[in-house]
């Protein structure tokens, strides 16, 4: 299958297979006017299978979201058809308004103007908990 290479834009590579759509949704790539390609289940020597997202525009990516969903991804910045920058992301310490608390007894569930804040409580298990009620993020 051929997907056009991009001239100026971003390639998010090494996405764990299955996480591509989640990233697409949390990064709100559906709101972009430019071409966006999600390629699922691409064969990979390292990972067996992986997902790739190609964005045909130089946009600002929320690296907290990337790090939260999949800290193993690689971001490639493309200019004039060449990779000019390549970086990895890490688990963010705090997530603000990325996910919301599902605990109906949490203050954030009834006061809508409150920021939804989650903090990293265990790096090893990649556990995030709601700042207000400590409910684990799912």
């Amino acid at each position, binding site marked *: 299958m051929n997907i056009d290479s991009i001239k100026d834009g971003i390639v998010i590579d090494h996405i764990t297979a299955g996480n591509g759509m989640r990233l697409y949704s949390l990064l709100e790539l559906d709101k972009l006017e430019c071409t966006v390609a999600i390629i699922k289940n691409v064969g990979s020597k390292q990972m067996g299978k992986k997902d790739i997202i190609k964005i045909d525009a130089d946009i600002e990516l929320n690296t907290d979201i990337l790090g939260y969903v999949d800290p193993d991804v690689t971001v490639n910045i493309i200019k004039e058809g060449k990779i000019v920058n390549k970086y990895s992301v890490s688990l963010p310490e705090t997530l603000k308004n990325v996910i919301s608390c599902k605990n109906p007894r949490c*203050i954030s569930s*009834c006061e809508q103007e409150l920021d939804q804040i989650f903090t990293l409580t265990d790096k090893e298990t990649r556990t995030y908990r709601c*700042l207000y009620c*400590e409910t684990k993020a799912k």
Partner: protein
Amino acid sequence: MRSLIDIKELSVSELDSLINTALDIIENPKKYSQKCQGKKIATLFFEPSTRTRLSFEAAMYELGGNVLGFSEAQSSSASKGESVADTAKIISLYADIIAMRHPKEGAPLVASMNASIPVINAGDGGHNHPTQTLADLLTIKRKKGRFDNLTVGLCGDLKFGRTVHSLISALSRYEGIKFVLISPEELKIPGYVKTDVIEKNGIEYVETTDLAGAMPELDILYMTRVQKERFFNEEDYLRLKDSYILNPQKLENAKKDLCIMHPLPRVNEISVSVDNDPRACYFEQALNGKYMRMALILMLLGIE
């Protein structure tokens, strides 16, 4: 400016310091009777409470300060839809310190993020209740003289009992603690308390359904209520409820210096016939709550 939302915010040395202040208040009440003169505590109770609210108010009066506040959400602007953040900002203009109870988990934290005065969490739903833990710790200190090398039995509803989770969290920082977790299968301690607190700190523990069997080794027995509404069916509740009622027969094999605690209110989980047993500490525990709240108010207001 500092608040107290979760017991974990206090270091071991800060806990020691609060306990020492409380012990000094007990010994020398007059020395503290004017310490908060001209200061006001706002007790913002968005849900009913007897002991906690009155204990905060008594604490402030005994420090020479004054009290304002409300005891139910209906008599506050929350009934008109005011946010916790706005309430905290406004009350900061009228008082020097806030004690807040709220049915929603995290509400006192939101208040502390918006207030310009210290906020004390006086209970937020099933989440935290740090001043109850302070009362529990002072009781243990006064009865046992130490926090290390104790076998602590926690009995009843260990799943939803916020006071149990906070006490485990506070005691897990001391050496030689062993927890005996006594509950029906349906109300066992949540997995995250076991993994994130007990096991993470390398604390010895056992889980059992047998209160009488666990009794002989306990230094402390912390009772909580097994509530009917926690069960899926009445049959299970009726089958289990008597196993977790403490009576003189169940205490026959207990240590002579066992310390029996309960955060109160008690319904029927400790028989009234236990009240006269010298090992019953739960009424004294409620009194200790007032002393620790006095010590805490002084600490948060920066009064020596």
